């Protein structure tokens, strides 16, 4: 089984997600959140058989942190070696959902590792994918959560 985050501790803007077992640590720095309302939600994904990405089936770990306009750092510990992708969004209204308008277009900011972008949608997994080795130590990556502008 993949480790699930057990807890997170917020300290000076750094969020720690401690997972059981050994493996690599991953620091995800979220940038571009346009307000401090709500929370930032981050998930680590792996490749699935069916290729669904991002989906509930592809999630291996997730975490949330209070939103902030300065960089928010979320740390995942003890990830086993493998290929991963990070997806994150700014849950501005704190309802735990990536809200969408009635045609299904996300109305909250979101982003992926490698700054991978699909056309008005998510990129394919391989565009967002990166590898963590067995003795990778700590890896840091930046995810730009490009938001819809604050609307009036």
């Amino acid at each position, binding site marked *: 089984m993949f480790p699930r985050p057990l807890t997170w501790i917020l300290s000076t803007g750094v969020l720690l997600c401690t997972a059981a077992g050994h493996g690599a640590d991953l620091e995800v720095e979220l940038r571009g959140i346009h307000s401090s309302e709500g929370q930032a*939600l*981050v*998930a680590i994904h792996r490749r699935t058989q069916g290729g669904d990405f*991002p*989906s*509930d*089936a*592809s*999630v291996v770990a*997730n975490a*949330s942190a209070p939103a902030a306009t300065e960089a928010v750092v979320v740390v995942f510990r003890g990830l086993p070696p493998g290929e991963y992708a990070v*997806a*994150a*969004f700014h*849950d501005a209204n704190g309802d*735990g*959902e*990536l*809200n*969408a*308008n*009635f*045609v*299904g*277009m*996300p*109305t909250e900011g*979101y982003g992926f590792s490698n700054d991978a*972008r*699909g*056309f*008005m*949608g*998510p*990129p394919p997994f391989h565009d967002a994918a990166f590898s963590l080795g067995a003795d990778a130590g700590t890896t840091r990556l930046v995810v730009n959560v*490009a938001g*819809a*502008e*604050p*609307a*009036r």
Partner: protein
Amino acid sequence: MNHFGLSRRNALRFLASAPLLSAGALRAGTAEEFAAGLARDRRLLAFATPRAREVAAPLRTVAGRLPAELTGTLWRNGPAEHDRFGHRYGHWFDGDGMLQAFTFDGTGVTHRGRILDTPKRRRETQAGRRVLPAFGTVPPDPDAIRRPDDMNAANTSALAHGERLLALWEGGSALEVDPETLATRGFVRWRDDLAGLPFGAHPKRERDGTVWNIGVVINPRPMLLLYRIGPAGTLDGFGHLPVDPLGMVHDFVVTERRLVALLPPFVVEPERFASGHTSFLDAHAWRPELGTRALVFDKDTLAPVGRHALPAGFHFHHGNGWEERDGTIHLDVCQAPDPQFVLRDLRAPMHGEWRFPSVHPGYRRVALRPDGAALIDDAAPGVTEFPRIDPRRVGLRHRRVFVLHGPGPTESGPATWVLQRIASLDPDGGVVEHWSYPPHQLPEEHVFVPRGPAEGDGWLLGPFLDVARREGGLHVFDARRLADGPLWEGTLPYPMPLGLHGTFVAG
């Protein structure tokens, strides 16, 4: 806890959908070829980028007298920043919008203009180059767009409503602008679940203050949106109708009980959807076999209540619509045989080529009968575009339409701008009167401002570009005495590129 599985069904559908833009981008312009063209033909100044991002100056009176009782602001919008970071767009409609104000205080007119600070433009400032697809041009190595507002140039028209000043584009949200500073305040969210959806550039305001509008969604599936905005500026109703295939629908009309949209057979084709390297315009196909579809909606329910078939044609604008007691709907339209002028001819000046368009919109009348019959016929000779009516007649029978007009290529030849006249039309009687601009002045849309109680009793405010003096300018006409020429002419100490649409706010 949310796993960011994008688990909402509609979000998944959106995210899984095909891209809007497709392969095979047409070439952008270059500053060099444009400069060479401008040296050959001074009229190309109409498509030059303003020298400054912000401009302000009083207008200098050249001739005539300003009516003292004419007070208020003419807001205008249009693509203006055609060049940036050494990249020149390839289509007239691409450029970042410049919102302009001509403010009449009873003794003089002052002008202000500012290139709108959109998220799109900010992103490009950050990148140090053009990175977002535009209406008719895709820059090299473009960013993928996450939502239509990523490429919102806010460059088409303006709406002042319910204490808000809005810059409108066709493919995305209305952008609220501070009327004092022309700084942007953010996109309008009419309702949370409507955030980011297209709000068209030709809203219609009725006498009771209700504003109607349409929007066209292509992705994830094509649909027409209908908005009813109350006098206070809040959403009073919303409707949508899946329509497949669908492409640009730039304008519509409102009657006493109905909204009517004419859909030209110029539609976005799924098979052209691909990599994000073809512009929105070039993702369209001309499919005359579809004909022009007329869709009629009930204003109370916003549900479709009628469909009519008309011959193929391409149009942007209507003057007005109204209905008879028996339910027959009448409307007028500036319709061309095909969309070549937008596909091809409106690109030419971006490349430094002054081209007389090969096909032209003409003034036509449409009747949609309750039994489903539909008729269309020519209602005035020559070329017409930018129709405006007395705003007190929106949805009611109108007897006057004020248009930019041209006699057509056979009379005028390629020496003049195709729309060299301001004309007053009677929908049933053709051209009532007109005034011809001198060849060195290129007119823009003329906006009607009411004065006395009768229809057509008012002024026309007409911005123009003087390519001989390299100055922008403004004319004020008595709308019932166009042939006499302008009551007043003022000029600016700088040129402005030709814009698109405006709205007048009295006071």
